[in-house]
């Protein structure tokens, strides 16, 4: 396999990846080993008239090289009654065999639960974030129950099934609800489990919504669903006119750092206004040595009412 893949030119070499610093070596990606279909790259984008949304998820260079599926995912939805946009981003834990499925389940369940909350409460106050994350966790447990290989004697034991879900499907999750406000602003509430995160980007300035000092060493160990932090609180924020909410995985957060390097600058420039979804995918797929993790980013811009977005 390596002879074949390494003898091929990079795919569609007419457009090389955006190189930032030293590029990753060039190679033809390997097919992902997954029984469920898992595209290498997903992009999406639309506008509600008050908010513009773009999302992209690209398989990391290491996973392309190894033939591992993209373990990141995202889901986005517009809520008609409130004009809100709901976002979820997840990063499946490499150690868990079906974590790519876990990431998808977590995102879709969280978005579904948040849309229900908007239906019921109209966006007033905060969602019950602990319940949203709990439901996303439970989707993993339900899925794990249906997978072959479980111990039939303990199939009814939820504790055992939760542990199995953790081994098979563990994933981070960060979710947000964005409500359009006056004068091109928006209000945001967000919560997470694990190291996926969110930022307010204003011009070149990146402000992370979830604080916490960076550790001394890079730590690949994360707390992930179906395990929840004991205390979960929504983080509120106001998105100023001209700003953009970014929700992403550590595949983006790592190379961005505090946002003052070339990756932060490239993304800030590319996201000054909503790019085409394909352009967001291209931007996220930048090539920079040692940054080879899956990358997922959803961006939400408040629009002035007359702005067609």
């Amino acid at each position: 396999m390596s002879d074949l893949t390494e003898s091929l030119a990079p795919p569609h070499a007419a457009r090389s990846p955006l190189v930032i610093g030293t590029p990753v070596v060039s190679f033809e990606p390997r097919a992902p080993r997954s029984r469920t279909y898992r595209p290498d790259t997903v992009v999406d984008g639309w506008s509600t008239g008050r908010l513009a949304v773009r999302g992209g998820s690209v398989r990391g260079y290491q996973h392309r090289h190894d033939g591992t599926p993209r373990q990141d995912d995202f889901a986005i939805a517009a809520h008609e009654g409130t004009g809100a946009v709901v976002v979820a981003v997840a990063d499946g834990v490499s150690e868990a065999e079906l974590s790519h499925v876990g990431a998808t389940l977590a995102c879709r369940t969280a978005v579904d639960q948040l849309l229900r909350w908007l239906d019921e409460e109209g966006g007033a106050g905060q969602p019950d974030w602990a319940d949203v994350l709990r439901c996303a966790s439970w989707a993993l447990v339900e899925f794990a129950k249906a997978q072959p290989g479980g111990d039939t004697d303990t199939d009814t034991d939820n504790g055992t099934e939760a542990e199995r879900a953790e081994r098979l499907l563990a994933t981070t999750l960060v979710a947000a609800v964005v409500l359009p406000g006056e004068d091109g602003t928006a209000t945001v509430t967000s919560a997470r489990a694990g190291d996926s995160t969110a930022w307010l980007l204003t011009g070149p300035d990146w402000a992370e919504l979830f604080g916490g000092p960076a550790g001394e060493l890079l730590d690949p160990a994360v707390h992930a669903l179906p395990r929840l932090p004991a205390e979960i609180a929504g983080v509120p924020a106001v998105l100023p006119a001209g700003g953009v909410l970014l929700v992403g995985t550590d595949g983006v957060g790592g190379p961005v750092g505090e946002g003052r390097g070339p990756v932060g600058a490239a993304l800030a420039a590319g996201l000054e206004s909503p790019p085409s979804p394909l352009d967001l995918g291209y931007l996220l797929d930048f090539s920079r040595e040692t940054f080879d993790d899956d990358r997922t980013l959803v961006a939400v811009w408040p629009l002035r009412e007359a702005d067609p977005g």
Partner: protein
Amino acid sequence: MTENLGNVLPVYVVADESLSMSPVVGELNAGLAALHRALLREPMAAAKVRFTILGFSDDVQVRLSLADLRTEEALPTLTTRGGTRYSAAFEALTDQLPRDIDALKASGYAVYRPAVFFLTDGQPNDEPEWRTPYGTLTDREITRAAPNIIACGIGEAQARTIVDIATRPEFAFVATPGTELGLAIAEFSVALTKSIVASARAAADGKTELVVERPNNFVMAIDVV
């Protein structure tokens, strides 16, 4: 971290150069060469690794320091000399690791917890004295950069010692007679290097809880995979 230049993993090969290793030093050198080749076949992993080789017997000699193996033509050759003082190796690592990590961070890199590949026949002359400096090196309260230690037993390896040196049971490796030692070390090391930088579930602690009850509001989203 204002600008992250890259994510790097400091890897230390700490090789027993005592005279008792004489029958296997050729295989050990072949192992290093095989490791070099194996890593070059893994370009993502190779880009992250900064490679140091320490040879130890009664003292420790630096054979290579924080090298990018993609730019090294060949690795240095190990030779045998003197006795087997594990204390010397663990003391040198306790001294060297924090300084190397500070230097890498000062250059703008984010650094993974170091990995030490400890290659030995498991017959130290300083039993049990070596266990004190080993404890200092591996205690994360004392040594913040405490490494993951992967212990590879070679030759007439004493399996008990190898298990004691490895910081996790799965990090202990004893080459079975008849295997091609160099290749075995190389494959084991590359697989571990990749697993060290891949995301993993954090150990359960009192600050987290596993969701084991179905939430009242739970509805299976209809469009799931």
